[in-house]
């Protein structure tokens, strides 16, 4: 573009930016308290709607003026609903409150907003350094994170484009529109950014291939078909800061020469669909998307496409087929989508996190980005850490941090002081790593080498009460159900894997099963058509590699070391601990398997027992008399009281 055009572009955008700053200033300087409430799906699930309503009602009731600012998710799921109250008149800094129920909200309005008492017992910390309240940055859950993609998540209103612009949003789009596509791609290449969907393909290279691909029409697709069990990174980003993703898409589209883009979101994410649709609308109204963006010659239409929930549609070729209206079945690659994608046009498909990484990279430069993370995996990784971990939630860390640091330092370790058993990374395509490998750095290559994979960011932490055979069975059950049925290895092979694992957990395993599990898994990995099949055996293969003794115990001794496989365990009551005359277990047993002995203690009728474990929950902690054993034939024989005549 000519210098005159550039000047016009800047002019048009600075008018928008001024408006955004004016609004931001008005909000900041309003002489009333501001209440920021996390209103993404995770917050809402924990009751944020009720919390917001309680704030509104109590404020109205007590005639207090305050501004409620709905924001996205800050990533601290263990603390939801999360509220930050900024009440300058009180003399306190902005305060971070956790688990703010409707009742707590009412109380905070009365005691803090009205009377100035911040109620220290409910505080997580202050959001800034100060002399009165410890800052949240003193906790490792906050200070060991490095926020690049999620920097603004939880601080801006995702439904207000001006909030994003006031934070510097869309200025990178303005900058790139004044550059040649070559320069943009070079910068992205230099940054070393690798695809955050899991495979880690260099983003700059993908863009370059698409730019050079033959075709008048090119398309950009944002893949938000997140489907791994326990993973919700993409949803949170779209619900908390959709404009950063849209800006990334616009930059990508300009760089590769595309005028059409699609955000592919699964329909199970209704809030994300709503927020992204609204964000596109707002961006169009301001001329940041649509025809002649900011008076330039660049046009971009972005549409939202709702995926219908098939896991395999996260695979790019299946995703394309499903947009085209066919069954979501993958195709052989090559040709790759960058050559022949949606409707046959060259198509760039990038994950949400990849696209959201682009504006910060262009803002701070490739060298800055390379300074974060490791040499071969620059930048940050976002994980949704779930399972038996204290501070579950979304964590953005520099690549290269070890699993131990992430799980034990940042996320607070294992719940209930139990021991760590395994961590499952990369969802159903990933693997289970044992305690020995906790010092593995988190980056694309190290995790692949260990037998897991980066995946898109699901991480399930498991404690000592987890049976690894059962975990493998769980994931195989998932992939087997999600197989599209197209190719032989995945369709029939995963079915056989699942059957073998089911047999093992039921104690019906045979010696040859482990061997067959291994060889079949290897063949499925090599033989399958798409990524789903190629990675489906990973949970079985890694658990077999690292927890072989558990598998052997299931086969040879019919024993489940974690005492979890129902067919292999039995419950009994330790008669030394069982309290005479107590009926807690007997009253809760759903199948009347609990009987009374002659000295009025309790026994379990093994024939009747369904091993639900209710008695273990019901037994008062002061007795703690319920025990589990495996194999089940080790259970002591307890005699019933003789029938009264």
């Amino acid at each position, binding site marked *: 573009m000519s210098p005159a055009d550039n000047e016009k572009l800047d002019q048009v955008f600075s008018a928008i930016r001024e408006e955004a700053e004016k609004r931001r200033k008005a909000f900041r300087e309003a002489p009333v308290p501001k209440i920021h409430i996390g209103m993404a799906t995770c917050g809402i699930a924990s009751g944020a709607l009720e919390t917001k309503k309680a704030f509104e009602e109590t404020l109205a009731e007590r005639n207090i003026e305050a501004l409620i600012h709905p924001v996205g998710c800050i990533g601290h799921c263990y603390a939801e609903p999360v509220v930050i109250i900024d009440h300058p008149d009180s003399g306190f800094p902005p305060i971070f409150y956790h688990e703010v129920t409707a009742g707590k909200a009412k109380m905070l309005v009365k005691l803090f907003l009205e009377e100035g008492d911040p109620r220290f017992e409910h505080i997580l910390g202050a959001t800034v350094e100060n002399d009165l309240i410890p800052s949240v940055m003193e906790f490792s859950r906050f200070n060991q994170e490095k926020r690049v993609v999620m920097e603004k998540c939880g601080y801006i209103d995702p439904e207000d484009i001006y909030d994003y612009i006031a934070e510097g949003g869309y200025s990178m789009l303005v900058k790139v529109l004044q550059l040649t596509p070559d320069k943009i791609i070079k910068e992205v290449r230099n940054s070393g950014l690798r695809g955050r969907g899991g495979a880690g393909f260099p983003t700059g290279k993908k863009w370059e291939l698409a730019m050079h691909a033959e075709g008048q029409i090119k398309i950009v697709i944002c893949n938000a078909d997140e489907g791994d069990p326990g993973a919700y990174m993409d949803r949170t980003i779209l619900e908390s800061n959709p404009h950063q993703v849209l800006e990334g898409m616009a930059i990508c589209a300009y760089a590769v020469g595309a005028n059409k883009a699609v955000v592919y979101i699964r329909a199970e994410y209704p809030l994300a669909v709503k927020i992204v649709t609204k964000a596109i609308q707002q961006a169009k109204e301001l001329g940041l998307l649509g025809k002649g963006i900011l008076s330039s010659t660049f046009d971009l239409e972005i549409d939202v496409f709702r995926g219908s929930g098939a896991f395999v549609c996260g695979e790019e070729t299946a995703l394309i087929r499903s947009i085209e209206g066919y069954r979501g079945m993958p195709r*052989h690659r090559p040709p790759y989508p960058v050559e022949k994608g949606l409707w046959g046009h060259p198509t760039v498909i990038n994950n949400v996190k990849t696209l959201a990484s682009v504006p910060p990279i262009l803002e701070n430069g490739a060298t800055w980005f390379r300074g974060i993370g490791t040499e071969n995996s620059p930048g940050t990784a976002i994980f949704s850490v779930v399972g038996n971990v204290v501070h579950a939630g979304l964590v953005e860390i520099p690549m290269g941090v070890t699993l131990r640091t992430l799980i034990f330092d940042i996320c607070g370790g294992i719940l209930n002081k139990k021991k760590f058993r395994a961590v499952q990374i990369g969802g159903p395509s990933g693997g289970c790593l044992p305690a020995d490998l906790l010092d593995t750095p988190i980056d694309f290559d190290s995790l692949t080498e260990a037998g897991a994979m980066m995946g898109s960011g699901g991480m399930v932490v498991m404690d000592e009460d987890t049976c690894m055979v059962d975990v493998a069975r769980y994931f195989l059950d998932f992939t087997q159900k999600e*197989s*599209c*049925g197209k*190719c032989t290895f995945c369709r*029939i*092979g995963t079915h056989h894997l699942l059957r073998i694992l089911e047999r093992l957990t039921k104690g019906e395993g045979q010696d040859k099963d482990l061997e*067959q599990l291994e060889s079949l898994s290897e*063949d499925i990995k090599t*033989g399958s058509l798409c990524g789903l099949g190629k990675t489906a055996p990973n949970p079985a293969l890694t658990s077999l590699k690292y927890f072989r003794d558990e598998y052997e115990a299931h086969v040879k001794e019919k024993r489940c070391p974690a005492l979890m496989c129902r067919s292999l365990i039995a419950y009994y009551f330790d008669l030394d601990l069982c309290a005479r005359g107590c009926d807690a277990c007997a009253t809760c047993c759903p199948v009347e398997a609990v009987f009374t002995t002659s000295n009025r203690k309790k026994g379990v009728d093994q024939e009747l027992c369904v091993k639900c474990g209710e008695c273990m929950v019901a037994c008062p902690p002061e007795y703690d008399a319920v025990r589990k054993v495996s194999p089940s034939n080790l259970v002591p024989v307890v005699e019933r009281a003789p029938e009264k005549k």
Partner: protein
Amino acid sequence: MPKLLVDNKEIEVKEGTTLLQACLDNGIYIPNLCYLESMDDPSASCRMCFVEIEGEEKPITSCTVTVKDDMVVKTDTLSVRRLHRTAFRLLLSVHHVDCKNCHVNKKCELQRIAKYLEVGLKPKHLEQHLKEPDIDQDHPFLDYYPNRCVLCGKCIHICRKKHGQSVLTFAKRGFDTVISSYGKNDVSSLACEKCVVCVDICPVGALILKEAQE
């Protein structure tokens, strides 16, 4: 015309040919079930036609490779055979083996592959898992045997090619996938009575005309 070396035999084929077609045209058999020369885009779903190509790390399906000059190909290495056999055994583990009563007995592609791979039709290693019911009689003229079908998709392709739109399609998902006419049983709108392309192309006798059985 590209020249290539397959199992130490030099062959010369037309530019743009798939490797599988090139081999088949030159009398080199590679097991295959879902490949049709007339498909623009091979479905590569049966996963039978694996070969090893020099320079490639892993075995690769020959239906998805276009021949190149000086390509060196092996169709019978240990790793290739292992994949052939595993894929074949997997298919047989969901196949109702009852050749005596099957109308394609001795013409069946599975019998041919079994002979070629020296694999028995009743594999001992894997459990059999058959679908219920054994026969789908939904279509007015055709009967479909899900426990014979290998889901190669040839019937769908050929029907679409001949009639513009296919009467048959894949239905259900994953392990439960079957071929179905999806209740398109309005006799007047179907050309099926006089057309048997799908029956003729089925490599395993999973489709059969109702009247032919009587």
